[in-house]
């Protein structure tokens, strides 16, 4: 009997190893293609190549970490679970430190009145509030924010493709309304950069303290809801050889999910590198450009957006006739990186929603996200994950109303379970 059990176990193990080998080969193929693209693009434009590489890295970390900003907010309200939010907070803290150092070099004399040229310091006003509310509702209803949807598109979730379509529609609508928002709110709203009133170090300290306070609040929410247990893992078999040890290590890195704090720290660190290299992470402005180009092709060219030349962040990138720019490669890289990561983990699977109502949720949630990020000039990345580290008030205002919107969103999704 014991021998039979051992045989069965050996059979399962070798089947599992065969599957892992197949996944590894597929991943190697995908990464080779990604690397080839990198080399080819490098010859055309080194900036494009750099953004492709960053995109690959962001996409991989999002996929391996199962990192979603939408669930960071939503799970706090829905499940009393703070895992993803803790990862977000660590990423914000690391990015804030890095951004503060870079910005201190960019604007050494604070009484000059200059703002750091590429940081996401955006006008804060009603457009920020409403944009964040709409985005918060939309991201929960759609089942993921923009970065979450991008990485899940790479994993094969059909619903995320639908959400992305909705996102493009919402961004287009915001583009048609942009000039009204510019005149009514955006052009009249202040840009509040904390170092101007607190100094470089003071602004960073206040930001970190505020993030720390949020962290404590998350712990309190979790305790009130009950205990917290670590994520369970499938039972590992005995490691009997060096080969087994290596396979187990391979599984930990390439198959099992990464600890959320490592993923959050990596995203924060990558954002600092990207900011140092060029500008903070963010891509809804670029996706809005795609919407505009597509609409123009169909005969409905959106009006030229006022004021965008002076604003950083994910403002609408006006069409300049070019097919692709550096941000196009960033978004493409994110798809490719999450796709390759999913292949390696055996997590690529074409997933179609079980119920038709989910398509409606994804589409309508996407539209809300698109309109919200259009008028707020960024999504959970551009207006939040890159704005708070820019030591700008707009990031905090966006965050608060994002939370309110997410809470409203949880009320809605409970009803359509």
């Amino acid at each position: 009997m014991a021998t039979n059990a051992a045989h069965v176990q050996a059979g399962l193990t070798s089947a599992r190893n065969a599957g892992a080998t197949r996944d590894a080969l597929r991943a190697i193929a995908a990464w080779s293609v990604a690397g080839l693209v990198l080399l080819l693009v490098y010859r055309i434009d080194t900036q494009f190549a750099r953004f492709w590489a960053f995109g690959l890295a962001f996409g991989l970390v999002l996929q391996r970490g199962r990192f979603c900003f939408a669930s960071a907010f939503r799970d706090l309200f829905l499940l009393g679970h703070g895992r993803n939010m803790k990862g977000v907070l660590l990423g914000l803290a690391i990015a804030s430190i890095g951004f503060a150092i870079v910005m201190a070099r960019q604007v050494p004399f604070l009484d000059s009145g200059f703002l750091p040229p590429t940081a996401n310091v955006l006008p804060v006003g009603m457009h920020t509030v409403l944009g964040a509310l709409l985005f918060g509702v939309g991201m929960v209803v759609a089942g993921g924010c923009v970065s979450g949807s991008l990485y899940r598109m790479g994993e094969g979730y059909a619903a995320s493709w639908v959400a992305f379509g909705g996102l493009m529609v919402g961004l287009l609508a915001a583009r048609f309304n942009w000039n009204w928002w510019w005149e009514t709110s955006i052009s009249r709203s202040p840009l509040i950069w904390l170092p101007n009133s607190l100094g470089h170090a003071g602004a960073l300290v206040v930001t970190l303290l505020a993030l720390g306070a949020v962290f404590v609040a998350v712990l309190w929410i979790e305790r009130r809801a009950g205990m917290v247990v670590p994520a369970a893992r499938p039972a590992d078999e005995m490691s009997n050889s060096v080969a087994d040890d290596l396979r187990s290590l391979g599984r930990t890195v390439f198959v099992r999910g990464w600890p959320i704090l490592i993923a959050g720290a990596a995203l924060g660190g990558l954002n600092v590198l990207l900011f140092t290299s060029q500008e903070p992470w963010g891509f809804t402005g670029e996706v809005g450009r795609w919407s505009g180009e597509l609409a123009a092709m169909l005969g409905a060219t959106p009006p030229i957006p006022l004021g965008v030349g002076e604003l950083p962040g994910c403002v609408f990138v006006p069409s300049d006739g070019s097919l692709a720019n550096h941000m196009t490669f960033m978004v493409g890289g994110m798809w490719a990186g999450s796709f390759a990561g999913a292949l390696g983990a055996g997590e690529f699977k074409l997933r179609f929603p079980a119920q038709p109502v989910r398509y409606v949720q994804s589409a309508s949630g996407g539209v809300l996200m698109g309109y919200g990020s259009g008028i707020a000039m960024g999504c959970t990345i551009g207006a939040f994950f890159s704005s708070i580290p820019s030591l700008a008030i707009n990031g905090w205002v966006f965050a608060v109303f994002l939370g309110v919107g997410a809470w409203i969103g949880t009320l809605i999704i409970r009803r359509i379970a």
Partner: protein
Amino acid sequence: MAKTLDVRGEICPYPMMRTVSELKKLTAGEQTLEVVTDHAPALDTIPTQAARLGFATAIEEVGGSEWRLVLTRKENAS
């Protein structure tokens, strides 16, 4: 006899939400719920939700990006 909940194809956060509501519906005599999912984030959230309701979680990799979570009522559940 274990009850089974198949949430494959569900978008976030329904795998977790539906698991929680099924667990709450189990009668005192039903000790086990098996959840089949293809949604990786569920592996991170379901164990805590199950523990709060008095269930221990064991995860089996079915392959092809599918997992079976076996939630068993703990002996001295409150």
